[in-house]
């Protein structure tokens, strides 16, 4: 179903760090779920339109009219590490 390599690759994509035992249980649990899910793989759905949405609307748009932005102190009040009116993050260049 899904092996350890795949689990680690997917965890990387999802920015999750899994402990050794988490990886083990994940391999087992995901494989079990996927085994069930794989039943739909055998269905013949040639030519069936995929449904990504049940609503039948289209062109729901917003007029290009400005409304006040949020006060900066309000948006920064939730920031883990505000600095100089901005959101500080560890450098992506760091190694």
């Amino acid at each position, binding site marked *: 179903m899904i092996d350890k390599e795949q689990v680690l690759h997917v965890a990387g994509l999802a920015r999750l760090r899994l402990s050794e035992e988490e990886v083990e249980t994940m391999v087992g649990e995901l494989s079990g779920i996927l085994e069930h899910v794989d039943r739909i793989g055998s269905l013949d759905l040639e030519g069936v339109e995929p449904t990504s949405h049940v609503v039948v609307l*289209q*062109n729901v*748009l917003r007029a*290009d009219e400005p409304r006040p932005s949020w006060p900066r102190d309000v948006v*920064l009040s939730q920031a883990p590490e505000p600095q100089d009116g*901005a959101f500080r993050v560890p450098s992506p260049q760091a190694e």
Partner: protein
Amino acid sequence: MAELEAVIGLEIHVQLATRTKMFCGCELSFGDEPNVHTCPVCLAHPGVLPVPNEQAIRYALQIGLALECEIAPHSIFHRKNYFYPDSPKAYQISQYDIPIASNGRLGEIRIHRAHLEEDAAKMIHVGSSGRIHGSGASLVDFNRGGTPLVEIVTEPDLRGAAEAAEWARLLRETVRQLGVSDVNMEEGSLRVDANVSVRPAGSEQLGTKTELKNMNSFRFLQRGMEAELARQRELIEAGGAVTQETLHFDPASGALTPLRSKEEAHDYRYFPEPDLVPLAPTEEMLREAREALPELPAARIERYQAELGLAPDVALTLASDPETADYFESTLAAADGAEPKVVANWVTGELAAALRQAEVEGGASGSRVTPESLAALIALVQDKKVSHGSGKTVLAALVAEGGDPAAIVEREGLAQMSDSSELEAIVEKAMADNAAAVEQIRSGNQKAIGALVGAVMRETKGRADGGEVSRLIRERL
């Protein structure tokens, strides 16, 4: 080994000049204090939802039509998933398998697609701060985040750095004349990435390409592509192979350095954005977009060459400046019978020079010289009522004070000399005063006639017709 030909395709991101962001009502801005144009939506707070900006859709339709694209009757947004601090939702809302516009062209270059998306935020790298093993940090400013973008992707139809840069200028001018973007490369409202590869001349399949980023002027764009083409040619001629990568161009050093990828494996896991419904441009939207299109540079250039027989460079000069082009056309209309070439030369040549001379801002259309008066002046010169030299004098006067050329000619006494007895007297005096020159001519040095003509012109203050003067001199040899 066959000579290696360049194969270049461009990806151009155009920031749309709407008032608000793509999916929220925050105002667009440039150079403001960080994070003063944000809200829960563009900061991706829990529970928020995007609502598309109608004006951005209309602008995208104009760009699509200007690039002669097919407009998708029904297009949708996707989510492009990747983790990076400049992407608050950790996905960019963009168009994927069904872009709003595709299969167009600008000039000779085919447009693969033009699609709508949202811009990322700005990150400023700041120095280290005694962190354990951090080499410093970045500050994120979300003012720019969510700015509407149209991404234009060409087919790999460009065959050289210079050609690519010139085409990019034409595209910029085209978008500028649509009035849908500031297209300012320095400020980043126009961003050009280049996909560059080489292949043996005549070969059909494409070589391995590299992607060049961060060329924030047309000069750097061309220099970057030239540098990369040279690098690839050397590599291959030395028996090496190009590796596909993204290169960052450093204008200062001219160096190209590989960029670290934002999401390893670049698995963006695109899927249809469930928070948005499909776009289906209505007849009314399409009609409005079509009606909003001005005559664009490419079309003007074609018309000027085909219908008016102008030289390519003159046509380009005029088309790149719609105001002057319109001025040229009204002058041509006023100057009945005048050669389009001649009128174009007066507008792009003599008039442009006179305006530069007088340091007049705002071009021909903004000057005191009306198309009618310029047309009248051109007529005077063509009918030999004024010499070409005096014509320039009149033009200088028109630039300074405007008015009617004929009146200026009258006032300044610049009318070409018609009384030939008077002219003959002046010619004979000049020959008498310059016996030496006369001798030289007789002994076969035709150039010497210039001295005599010059003397006559001085005497007549340029009012004499040069051709007539030399004819009279020869008569008398």
